[in-house]
């Protein structure tokens, strides 16, 4: 309960700083928080913002999910199977530092300007973050755990299920925590062109129309989206990694 109260307090302080800055600056470029709140509430109530929020949320979630279901199994295998690690690590070494966001034109040429390209780019960028963390975590599992499984007569598949996956899970979740920030940033990037839906579009559109209250509504919703995903991950972590909280 104490943690929740602290977070609420921090949020109020940030809003306070915003309010004071807006009053001091007295500029159209920085509306007061209550104006943004009123605008958001109105747009959510009449339904015009919900579509954008939903589609942005969906794009981010699908992007992360796509990265997760590909990067985690691959990362675990590369980390745990020495032969595979030797063969594939050089490729990862070369491909990881590439700023994948520059592949956007190529992705659009290949997959068009629809939702899939947007989701794919988010997935691609998050994929490498999760892959590298998962691989390293799987590589560094203590030998004792494998020995213990061997003494119990476990098959390779059982070792993945009972040791490799649970041992790396905390690290995978940390990677996801970092990925959420990245995913929302990329989301803004991919929604800033060739679309008329999504929070990124709202931000760019209201910026173009110099509608600053709407601009801040978009920004606040984007922030709320990131925060929501973060909270969701917290939930998941408490559920699947109960043991790390017990030490």
């Amino acid at each position, binding site marked *: 309960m104490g943690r929740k109260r602290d977070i609420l307090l921090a949020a109020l302080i940030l809003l306070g700083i915003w309010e004071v800055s807006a009053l001091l600056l007295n500029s159209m470029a920085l509306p007061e928080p209550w104006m943004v709140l009123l605008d958001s509430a109105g747009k959510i109530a009449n339904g015009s913002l919900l579509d954008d929020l939903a589609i942005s949320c969906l794009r981010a979630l699908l992007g992360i999910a796509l990265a997760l279901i590909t990067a985690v199994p691959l990362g675990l295998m590369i980390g745990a199977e020495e032969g595979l690690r030797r063969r594939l690590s050089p490729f990862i070494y070369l491909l990881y530092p590439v700023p994948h966001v520059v592949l956007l034109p190529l992705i659009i040429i290949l997959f068009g300007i629809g939702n899939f390209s947007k989701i794919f780019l988010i997935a691609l960028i998050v994929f490498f973050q999760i892959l590298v963390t998962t691989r390293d975590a799987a590589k560094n599992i203590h030998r*004792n*755990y494998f*020995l*213990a499984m*061997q*003494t*119990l*007569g*476990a*098959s390779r598949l*059982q070792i993945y299920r*009972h*040791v490799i996956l*649970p*041992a790396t*899970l905390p690290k995978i979740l940390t990677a996801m925590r970092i990925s959420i920030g990245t995913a929302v940033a990329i989301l803004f990037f991919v929604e800033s062109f060739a679309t008329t839906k999504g929070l990124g579009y709202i931000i760019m559109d209201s910026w173009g129309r110099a509608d600053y209250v709407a601009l801040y509504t978009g920004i606040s919703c984007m922030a709320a989206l990131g925060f929501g995903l973060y909270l969701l991950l917290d939930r998941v972590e408490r559920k699947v*990694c*109960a*043991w790390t909280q*017990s*030490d």
Partner: protein
Amino acid sequence: MITAQSANLSFSHGGADHPVLREISFQIEAESSCAIIGPSGCGKTSLLFLLAGLLQPDSGTITIAGQPRSGTILQNFGLFPWKTVYQNIGLGLVLKGVEKKRIQQKVEQLLIEMGLTGFGAHYPGQLSGGMQQRVAIARALAVEPQILFMDEPLSSLDALTRERLQNLIQEIRLKKNITMVLVTHAIEEAVFLGRRIIVLSGRPGRVLRIVDNPQAGSADYRQSDIFFHRCVELREILKGEDYGQET
């Protein structure tokens, strides 16, 4: 009956072969107990792993008559921190595909037997060293082994807990007629638990002497003169070797 005949083992480090064990020959009677003792780094653990089938000898043979079920307790327990006490104990049975109800019965019975009632839902990280060791013993016992291999199972515990667990191990062995092979660097532990004591030399480990210790397992053995004299005898044998730190 376990028979090791001129078993050799070596590991290669950077191209050169370093023998770990040389010309090891001995027998262990079924339903008896055997302690393997020797200086640090003499290959005790390797020998235990050979017997348990976790390593294969370079030459020589190790035969265990009748292919009995075996359980192994590793140094530092080898418990899985992401599994509860209950899940750790039941793991061997889960891996064998035993039905849930049977597992539940077995685990609950072991929790009582090991004095762990009420701790089934705890994680190993929440338990003391002595209790963790009880969990490790329970996990090995869950598969109803006929042979129990133990690698310095009590080395990280304080003296009192250690004695208590030695008594517990002794009780279990006698009650369940288990053949027990124990690796230890503690002289008193070897004398208390091993009806036969195999003394290894420094690296590469050879059998220095096999000491018969038929009184092991009797009540109040620790307080008897024979116990004291046998400890002195072992200390004398080991003194010839480099046995600095543990004495």
